[in-house]
């Protein structure tokens, strides 16, 4: 966890072929996959606990011995003790039975405790592994995958493996062990009868095999549909405000009902299918019982077998099918586990598009010079959004990016922070190519303030401290003061300990943005990016934080995206962007004299200012205040 080296999340030597499917596709593709692979993959997680497994197996042997000893002791009691009126032998048998039961209890306790511990611990490490992988995955993954679907992998699918782990592995082993034990005992009691019983074996094998393939596919569909339900829920619960505002409740209910109903339909189809399995096994077991009764009865009549032996044999036949029907009962969850495991590992194997090179080094303290050289970038192959961008920012400089929505301003920020990798060209900071240094060391020195502030649930203090985890209270307060938030915070009943939740609801958008300013400020980055950051702060507040912002920007290389030209007049360089190209660059005055695109923008802003009377020009003061140069 401390290792920042994002090697692909493959713990140990795994052979899984890297999936070439896109993450969002493998939800839909229900292609064939060999169970073996999933079991092997799971084994890697279980591997560290193999000693526990051995213990568990040993205990299982004890349980099996204890369980199997029962009927045998009763046989002794009936055939030898009771028939011969041997009281002391009867006492021995009874005490033996108590001892066997006690052994079963203690061993079962130990065994199931160990196994559930192993199972839960394995799930724990799977969740951790997945979570860590999610942290490494770059934005193009998140662009495609909805939160709800990721959630469903992390919760539903991982939990589907639970049964497999806690009961599956060991119970299967135990069942097999019991089977072998019973077979041996049956042969010991009467090999002819045993042989007759074994006839049903191949039939069971065949039925099981036929069932397995079909059932697997059905459960895979179930899990897929299940993730659709989760995704729908996640999106519509978090978007509930829009739902209510547009009175969509009834329609959405219908939609949800559709997704939910499909889930139900698939589930019922899958369970109907597997519900048939148990009875079939029962029926086969009947055939065996009849064989024993018929053939065994004959043997007893012929004097080749004692009555007690026949009784014991019948008991063993019953127990012989117990593990088999256990296996069938576990079938549902085993199938679900296989289907879930497949999806879990698909997520775990999702390649990380943007990752540190093997030889990536820590970016040391930087001064903040940024250089883009002929940068070409595309989100979707074949549709470049930046088509040859070159720019240079010296430390402390303020670079303003101007242009229409969609011109590529935010993309410049995304690639500067290396949220995405560029296709061609290079980006260097203090001469270091950003792909040569670790992402963590790069991002730690770049502060980003987004247009829509996102706060985490926790206290205001926690949220500010997110920028610098080791910050003490004084630092937090200083940061809050700098953005003029302190007075507001201490005005709250709980001050800095006020809880902010998910969306920071009950704080205004502007207040949330101020918290995110403080968060960026406390991180003390060398390079600062303000992406339309003050759009939601009113002008009065903006004035208030101007001083703080000036402080924040002083001595830092700043990239400012703003729609309002007035806010960026003071920038040392204004880059005018259009369709992925920088079409003009220079200071405000220089650009005006060029009479180009910027000039027109500028003119338009003043000419069309609000469109009403002359006294109401539309342009106004600093959306983002800048140090006056």
């Amino acid at each position, binding site marked *: 966890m401390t290792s920042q080296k994002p090697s692909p999340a493959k713990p140990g030597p795994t052979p899984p072929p890297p999936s070439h499917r896109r993450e969002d596709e493998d939800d839909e593709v229900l292609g064939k996959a060999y169970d073996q692979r999933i079991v092997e993959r799971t084994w890697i997680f279980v591997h560290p606990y193999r000693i526990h497994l051995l213990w568990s197996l040993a205990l299982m042997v004890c349980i099996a011995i204890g369980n199997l000893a029962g009927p045998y002791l009763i046989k002794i009691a009936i055939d030898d003790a009771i028939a011969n009126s041997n009281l002391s032998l009867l006492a021995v048998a*009874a005490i033996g039975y108590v001892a066997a039961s006690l052994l079963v209890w203690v061993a079962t306790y130990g065994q199931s405790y160990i196994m559930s511990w192993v199972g839960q611990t394995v799930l724990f490490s799977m969740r951790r592994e997945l979570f860590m992988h999610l942290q490494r995955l770059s934005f193009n993954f998140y662009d495609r995958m909805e939160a709800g679907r990721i959630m469903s992998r992390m919760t539903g699918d991982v939990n589907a493996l639970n049964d497999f782990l806690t009961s599956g592995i060991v119970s299967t082993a135990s069942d097999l062990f019991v089977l072998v034990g019973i077979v041996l005992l049956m042969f010991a009691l009467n090999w002819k009868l045993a042989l007759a019983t074994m006839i049903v074996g191949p039939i069971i094998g065949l039925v099981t095999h036929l069932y397995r393939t079909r059932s697997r596919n059905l459960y895979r569909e179930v899990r897929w549909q299940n993730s659709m339900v989760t995704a729908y829920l996640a999106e519509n619960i978090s*978007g509930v405000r829009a739902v209510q505002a547009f009175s969509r409740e009834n329609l959405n209910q219908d939609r949800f009902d559709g997704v939910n109903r499909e889930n139900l339909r698939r589930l019922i189809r899958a369970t109907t299918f597997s519900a048939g399995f148990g009875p079939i096994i029962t029926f086969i077991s009947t055939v065996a019982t009849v064989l024993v009764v018929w053939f065994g009865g004959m043997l007893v009549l012929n004097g080749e077998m004692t009555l007690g032996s026949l009784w014991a044999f019948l008991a063993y036949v019953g127990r012989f099918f117990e593990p088999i029907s256990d296996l069938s009962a576990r079938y549902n969850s085993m199938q679900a586990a296989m289907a879930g495991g497949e999806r879990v590992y698909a997520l775990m194997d999702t390649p990380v598009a943007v990752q540190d090179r093997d030889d990536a080094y820590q970016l040391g303290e930087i001064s903040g010079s940024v250089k883009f050289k002929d940068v070409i970038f595309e989100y979707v192959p074949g549709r470049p959004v930046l088509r040859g961008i070159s720019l240079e920012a010296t430390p402390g400089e303020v670079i303003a990016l101007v242009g229409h929505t969609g011109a590529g301003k935010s993309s410049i920020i995304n690639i500067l922070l290396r949220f995405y990798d560029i296709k061609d060209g290079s980006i260097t900071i203090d001469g270091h190519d950003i792909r040569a240094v670790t992402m963590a060391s790069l991002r730690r020195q770049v502060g980003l303030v987004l247009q829509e502030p996102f706060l985490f649930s926790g206290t205001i203090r926690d949220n500010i401290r997110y920028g610098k985890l080791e910050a003490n209270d004084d630092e937090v307060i200083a940061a809050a003061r700098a953005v003029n938030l302190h007075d507001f915070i201490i005005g709250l009943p709980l001050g800095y300990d006020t809880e902010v939740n998910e969306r920071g609801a009950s704080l205004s958008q502007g207040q949330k943005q101020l918290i995110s300013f403080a968060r960026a400020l406390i991180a003390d980055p060398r390079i600062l990016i303000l992406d339309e950051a003050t759009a939601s702060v009113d002008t009065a507040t903006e004035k208030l934080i101007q001083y703080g912002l000036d402080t924040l920007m002083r001595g830092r290389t700043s990239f400012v995206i703003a729609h309002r030209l007035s806010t960026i007049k003071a920038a040392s360089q204004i880059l005018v962007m259009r369709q992925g190209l920088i079409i003009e660059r220079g200071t405000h005055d220089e650009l005006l004299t060029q009479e180009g695109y910027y000039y027109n923008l500028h003119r338009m802003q003043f000419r069309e200012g609000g469109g009403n009377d002359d006294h109401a020009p539309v342009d106004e003061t600093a959306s983002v205040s800048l140090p006056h140069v």
Partner: protein
Amino acid sequence: MAILLRLLRFAYKYRLFTLIGYLCLIGTIILNLVQPLIFRQVIDVGIGERNTTALMEMAFAIVVVNVVSSFCGFGMSYCNEYVSQRVAYDIRNDLYDHLQRLSFAYHDRASTGELMSRVTSDVEHSRVFVGTGVLQLVNTVILYVSILAIMLSLSWELSLVSLATLPLIGITAVQYRSRVQPMFRQVQRQWAVLTAVLQENITGVRVVKAFAREPFEVSKFKTENDAYLERNVATTRLQSLVFPMMVFISSMGTVAILWYGGLQVIEGSLSVGSLIAFNSYLMRLAGPTRQFGAIVAWVSRAIASGERLFEILDTPSPVRERSGLPARSTIDGQVTFENVVFSYGKAFAAIPGYGAVTETSAFKPIVHARDREDRTLLRGTGASPASVIQEINLEAHPNEVVALIGHTGSGKSTLTSLIPRFYDVSSGSVKVDGIDVKEYRLADLRRNVGIVMQETLLFSATVAENIAFGNVEASMTDIKRAAHAAQAYEFIRDLPEQFETKIGERGVNLSGGQRQRLAIARALLIDPRILILDDATASVDMKTEFQIQEALRELMAGRTTFIVAQRLSTITHADQILVLDHGRIVQRGTHLELITVPGPYLDIYDMQLRDQDEARDAANREIVSSPTVIK
């Protein structure tokens, strides 16, 4: 118990299937019980009396019994699965329906991850109870009773001996239940916390990455994951101890029978066949006894989960529609606020369990999240000062434009959200066309109020579907017209599949400005009489903002419009400007009126526009006089 009954009530709808399932169950049980009797015949008659015909008959009987029992077995598990899945489906539907109707006040405090965990995990646990749990309970009880009855008929003395273990098993079960139920509650609670952490991490991934906080997030997740592991292991540990213990106790019955029955056989008062049959019945109790532990666990778990489900279902939305309200499809658009006071605290207090802490309620208003034990669905924030809005009076005539301006947190957005009744006022009234908004059906009211919120929520669907969000019947022509009006047409045309382009969950692949324009188009498409623009153009570029405003001006004509704005420039033409400060209207008037009197508006004007005037003049001078002169 009440919770269990409520869960079972969901199954009542499918009583026919339930009945068939239980009949099949009874069939299976009876047939299972018949088997030892057949075996006794085999031994006593077939073997004891060397009667081979009887032996054959018995063998045939076993086949018949088992074939029938197989069919019953299938019928049982099918019906059972069917009913339980239907129940889960119904509960999920109910939950979702209820959740989306709960007012904003509720959603302000509940976290998505937490709610998700309830709709998924808790529903699943309830389902297992309704399905397998009850079935096994019935099965076990019937088995126990009938086995006991048969045993009594075979030998009452032996039966009494073997019954001795029963009270012990009962005591164990009761003890176990009382200990495991709170543990399950904790497990479910912790699971919700884990889900919430995960959910937040995924939605906030941008911030996480920007601050390179991945290790921190991992450790945060690890803490909750650890706690979940710990609680789960504690629960299963108890389970591991108790289940086999019950089996042990029950097998002591076998020992007693072996000893006591053996003596009787020796004395000659019992046949060997009877002893064997008796013993095999007794051994058949081992299975149900083992099941019994599991049943207790299912029940406890269902109670813990059911509590969490009903907590949601029982939460009345503070914003409730009175029944029997007349339909009002069209309105004129007159909006009146009379002495309106609103505070979030009041709104939350209306949610049971939030305001008042009751002993039975799992809700507690939690202020410190650190106390993880008490993390519940709703988290108090206390972030809001007592009253957000105080004594607001205002009157907007149809087709008027009302602008709201004021500091961050002064109550502008809150005020507008009272019009579509996202929250209920604490006192006073909000009226539309002179009728209190509470007297409208919510759908009628909201269909006439178009709102463009600060935070743009788009859904994973196509662009066209997102625009038609509030009016799914809209034709493509209407959608295009709305897109035009919102100045969104141009960028939509440039998208790979134009109006059919799928956009991500939160419109990730669109820029803020683009998303906002879609939201505007969405609001316009429902052709509302009242339009609320809550800082709607904050993140679009200048040119687009003008275009939108140009378009809006047309659209605002014939609609009552409320504009929340940070910038005076966007509101100078309003019929009324209200300046808000700390939830009060401190100034009102038109732009021209307000700039003549000293006050907050003039201050803002000085801050924003006066500079601008000069700047503009200067710029104009530059541009007009000599564009080429500089340098």
